[in-house]
């Protein structure tokens, strides 16, 4: 069984045996992973998916932290990655949440049925008492037939026992679900983990009757184990459950959501985009760095054309580093910091429940809020995560709306910074216009795009105070991923623009676009550069706005138009990959038309 497949899949050293950490989402796998592996963490992007897999070392083992799943199947990318790792690993540490044991035991029993050698980590035992739950660990051990270790990983409790269990190799095959053999035999199959995997449809995203029968049998069996080992009383529920209801109830939930968005705007738009960026972009990069680099280039390069390309207005060593490091870097880190906190707190699925009703009106369910919110980080990444949505129709609608209306993290930061200078009412007007277009286009797409939409069906994880170390780690990896991906595109974009500028072609394009830009949109002709940059990257385009002098109303028109303007080159490529060229060209052209139309109408009203 140990064929080094996981080592090959993840490109990790094959002289060490793999232990996979497997569990439902939000059960504390990553915390246990960190406690076991210390700081030696490597990240591997799983081929063909958006999913990153962390791995680290514990003595002679490679510990692989798999994405959280509810079962071994193929309903989404996370499940496919976990499925592949589990099927190719013999030793598994299965982390379960003590408070949600009845739910989590399904996966535990599935791993046992697949004849894996398992150690069960009963995590968050400290929350058991607070929730009036009593778990008979010895009985649980006996029923499952594997080692069960109680931990409260965030406090570091029980980790020594887990390490001892790994050192002593207490991994064991447990007791499989009774009557499983009978079901397989009735289908003419001999019992083995391979035939079980096939019968359970683990390689397909569709569901079968046989799979359902096996699931039902396993569910009944784990419910029996749960009833024998766990005593609970849900009458006296903890504060968290009440808070959860407050977040979902529209009367209280909507003001809390608005307050959260306001905090995000204040944090990104005021604290970071204005105060911090003012220091990093204007002082550090604009004064010290630019002076320094111009001095050096001036000494060694005498050709004026080359000087313009290197350190001119759009120079590869002037504009690029100033915008990339001075402006984008702080904004991207700030956004991911905020998002990681939201993700780890368990608030996102509650937002999904809260907005479900509104989203139904545009042919989506509340789950689509997750790619939409991620779109505020990076539309390209969000386009990929539309895979979590249940139907093709939902994916097409969401991708269109992402490409049209959602500004990415850096663009959002710049917009927030610019708009807060215009004043509060401009902010409100901006939100209302973009939200109106979002709703209107969504309604039209719902009517136009054929197919079916699925209903919301989402697990609401326990609310938690996010762990600082986890939040920082996530922020680090996500920002790093985003910036490494953006770097080469920025270099090329700057070079193209620098070249256009140095050869005066920029001027020609500006003149060509003049009837639309200065005539219809009533904006300064330099805004054309912003549109050109936006095609390459939206955030880069928005950054260009900072340097162009405009009136307040012109700035407002420019902000609305550039927000709605075409998706950037990378999201265009991603859309093409997911849905074909015809669809992405359609989105691109329609966004340009809608942006110019809305901007023009607005200009004629307020200018």
């Amino acid at each position, binding site marked *: 069984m140990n064929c080094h497949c996981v080592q090959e899949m993840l490109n990790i050293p094959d002289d060490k045996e793999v232990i996979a950490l497997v569990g439902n989402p939000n059960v504390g796998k990553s915390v246990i992973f960190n406690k076991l592996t210390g700081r030696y963490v490597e990240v591997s992007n799983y081929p063909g998916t958006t999913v990153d897999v962390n791995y680290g070392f514990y003595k002679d083992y490679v510990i692989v932290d798999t994405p959280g799943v*509810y*079962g071994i199947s193929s*309903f989404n990318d996370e499940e496919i990655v976990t499925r592949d790792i589990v099927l190719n690993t013999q030793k598994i540490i299965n982390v379960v949440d003590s*408070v*949600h044991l*009845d*739910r989590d035991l*399904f*996966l535990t029993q599935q791993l046992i049925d697949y004849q894996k050698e398992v150690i069960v980590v009963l995590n968050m035992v400290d929350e058991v008492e607070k*929730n009036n*739950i009593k778990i008979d660990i010895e009985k649980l051990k006996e029923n499952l037939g594997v080692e069960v270790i109680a931990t409260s990983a965030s406090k570091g409790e029980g980790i020594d026992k887990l390490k001892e269990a790994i050192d002593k190799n207490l991994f064991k095959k447990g007791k499989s679900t009774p009557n499983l053999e009978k079901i397989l035999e009735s289908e003419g199959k001999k019992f083995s983990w391979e035939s079980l995997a096939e019968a359970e449809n683990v390689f397909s995203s569709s*569901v079968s*009757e046989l*799979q*359902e029968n096996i*699931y*039902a049998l*396993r*569910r*009944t069996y784990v*419910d029996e184990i749960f009833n024998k080992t766990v005593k*609970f009383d*849900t009458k006296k529920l903890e504060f968290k*459950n009440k808070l*959860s*209801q407050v977040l*979902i*109830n*529209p009367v209280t939930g909507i003001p809390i959501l608005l307050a959260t968005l306001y905090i995000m705007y204040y944090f990104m738009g005021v604290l970071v985009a204005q105060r911090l960026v003012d220091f990093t972009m204007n002082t550090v990069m604009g004064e010290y760095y630019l002076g320094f680099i111009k001095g050096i280039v001036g000494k060694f390069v005498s050709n004026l054309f080359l000087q313009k390309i290197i350190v001119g207005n759009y120079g590869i060593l002037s504009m690029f580093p100033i915008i990339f490091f001075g402006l984008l870097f702080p904004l991207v880190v700030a956004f991911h910091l905020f998002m990681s906190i939201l993700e780890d707190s368990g608030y996102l*699925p509650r937002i*999904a*429940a*809260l907005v*479900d*009703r509104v989203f*139904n009106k545009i042919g989506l*369910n*509340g789950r689509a809020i997750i790619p939409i919110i991620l779109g505020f980080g990076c539309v390209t990444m969000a386009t990929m995560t539309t895979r979590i949505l249940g139907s093709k129709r939902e994916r097409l609608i969401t991708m269109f709306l992402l490409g049209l209306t959602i500004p990415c993290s850096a663009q959002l930061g710049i917009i927030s910074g610019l708009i807060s200078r215009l004043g509060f009412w401009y902010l409100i007007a901006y939100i209302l216009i973009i939200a109106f277009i979002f709703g209107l286009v969504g309604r039209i797409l719902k009517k136009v795009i054929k197919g079916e939409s*699925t*209903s*919301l*069906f*989402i*697990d*609401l994880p*326990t609310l938690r105070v996010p762990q600082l170390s986890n939040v920082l780690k996530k922020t680090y990896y996500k920002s790093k991923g985003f910036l490494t991906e953006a770097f080469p595109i920025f270099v090329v974009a700057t070079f193209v623009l620098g070249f256009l500028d140095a050869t005066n072609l920029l001027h020609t394009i500006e003149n060509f676009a003049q009837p639309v830009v200065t005539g219809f949109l009533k904006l300064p002709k330099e805004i054309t550069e912003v549109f050109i940059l936006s095609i390459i990257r939206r955030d880069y385009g928005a950054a260009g706005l900072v340097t162009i002098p405009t009136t307040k109303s012109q700035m407002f028109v420019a902000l609305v138009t550039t927000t709605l303007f075409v998706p950037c080159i990378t999201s265009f490529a991603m859309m093409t990959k997911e849905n074909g060229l015809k669809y992405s060209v359609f989105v691109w052209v329609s966004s340009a038309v809608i942006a110019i139309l809305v901007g023009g109408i607005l200009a004629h009203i307020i200018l």
Partner: protein
Amino acid sequence: MTLDMISKDQEVIIKSIKSKTARVYALRFGINEGSKVKCVAKINNGPIILRKNHQEIAIGSGLAKQIEVETQK
């Protein structure tokens, strides 16, 4: 009656779930036909939030209409 008709704090038993996919999803979450669940929150014309033991699940109204339930006396 169907799940979308129940009110907050009401306890019901799941009788049947029409969609095969939803049935498989529900089984993994810990809910099967015969499960006793409680409605802990309900958004008008929107999702129903169910709790079984300590597990909370939000179910959209479209799907809730396809789930037959029996009230607890």
